[in-house]
């Protein structure tokens, strides 16, 4: 059981944390918790789905409780752009598979907070309010981080624009 799912659990956690050591710590804690609660567990979904869900929850708790993530000192939102810069139609010409690969890579390069918020929205399909509640930040911050993530992803994918901050 442990051996079979350890890799999957670590990949899930590492998607958020991007830190192998911290990832393995969180994974170990998660399996230890499972072991302790083994008598009270009822799994209604599939085992991998359950473990993935649990891994995400543990990761988000870790992020929330970790001093490393200082959500208070948030940069002001992106300079108020009102007019979208008209880019050549590069993005729309990229092939589906190519774009997927590029986005997956670009996500890993996003700044930490940005990546966490973006993944919570896209992977876990949480609403802004849920994300905010889980991380103890404001919905406005979530909104700004999602906007920033989108902008940086586009820049990365098209290979254009300023370097990610």
């Amino acid at each position: 059981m442990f051996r079979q799912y350890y890799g999957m659990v670590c990949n899930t956690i590492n998607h958020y944390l991007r830190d192998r050591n911290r990832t393995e710590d969180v994974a170990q804690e998660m399996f230890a918790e499972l072991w302790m609660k083994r008598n009270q567990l009822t799994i209604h979904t599939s085992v991998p789905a359950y473990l993935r869900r649990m891994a995400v929850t543990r990761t988000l708790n870790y992020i929330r409780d970790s001093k490393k993530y200082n959500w208070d000192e948030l940069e002001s939102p992106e300079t108020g752009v009102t007019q979208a810069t008209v880019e050549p139609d590069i993005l729309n010409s990229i092939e589906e598979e190519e774009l997927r690969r590029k986005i997956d890579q670009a996500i890993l390069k996003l700044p930490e907070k940005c990546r966490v918020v973006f993944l919570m929205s896209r992977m876990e399909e949480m609403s802004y309010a849920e994300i905010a509640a889980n991380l103890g930040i404001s919905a406005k911050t979530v909104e700004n981080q999602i906007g920033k993530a989108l902008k940086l992803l586009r820049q990365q994918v098209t290979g254009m624009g300023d370097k990610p901050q």
Partner: protein
Amino acid sequence: MKESIEARIGRYLAGEMDEQEKAGFQNELATNPALETAYLGYQRIWQMKPNAPADQWDQELAWVNFEKKNFAAPSPLKAKRSVAYWAIAASLVILSGATFYFLTLPTAKTYLYADAGSSAIELPDGSKVHLNKGSGIVVFPFTRKGRHVELSGEAFFEVNSDTQRPFTIDCGHTITEVVGTSFDLRQVKDEVLLFVNSGKVIFRSGDNSQTALALTAGEAAYFENDKLKMVANPSPNTLAWKTKELQLKDLSLPDAIRDVSTYFGVIITVENKDLNACGKIHSTLPFKDPQVRTILDVIARSFNALVVEKDGKYTIKGGSCN
């Protein structure tokens, strides 16, 4: 503070806008080609569901660390290690609905409850084990001298007679020893209940083998707080989980409620406590594959009471002895 265009598109894509704002945004999209271009790009990005990276992890090393941290205490019971392997897997897998059968150590085989329709497990000597929901059993290799298994949860055993090789079951803090018989063994936390269906069974505390009870067909005993005790009137419904048959005949109301509640796994409350002292229920026919509501209606009717269901919990209201 002005909202960035990306943040705004993000809110639209994430479904965070109310109807009015959405309509406004769509309207703007239609009239502002620059915004539309930007939007279409972001929409494509948004629609790509991200994949977690597939990195390599050293699960063997991690397992060693996990073992060190979680199973560090010296194990007093033999083969505890194998149970540890099994238990963590079992606890996760049992209710997943799939059929699982796998090796834990090269020495023992583990079987887990698969689903209600599954057939009995046949052991190497031809004996049969029927597992109840959420239960599992570790079968050690049978030797010339004995047959040994470890049970967690509940199972009905049909053990083939072999006087040369006693059959022993570790369950909770008890050891049950038989030669050839059929019986039911149930463990709930620290309590273990044994019901003998046929033949003869020796029931022992695992920590203190001095304490032992010998039971024959129709008898039951339980182990609780390090003590073994005979059950005065074993419930006729002990095997109901296996036979799918419930009986109410000659049961008092509290006993009937206990059996029905165990069988269906539901909470049942009797509002009128006076009913508990009433006589026995006279319904004679057994219920084959019963519905909870049907059974409770029959029980309630014998006391002129009513059954009320709310959020999956049942209450028996009113009524009298008569």
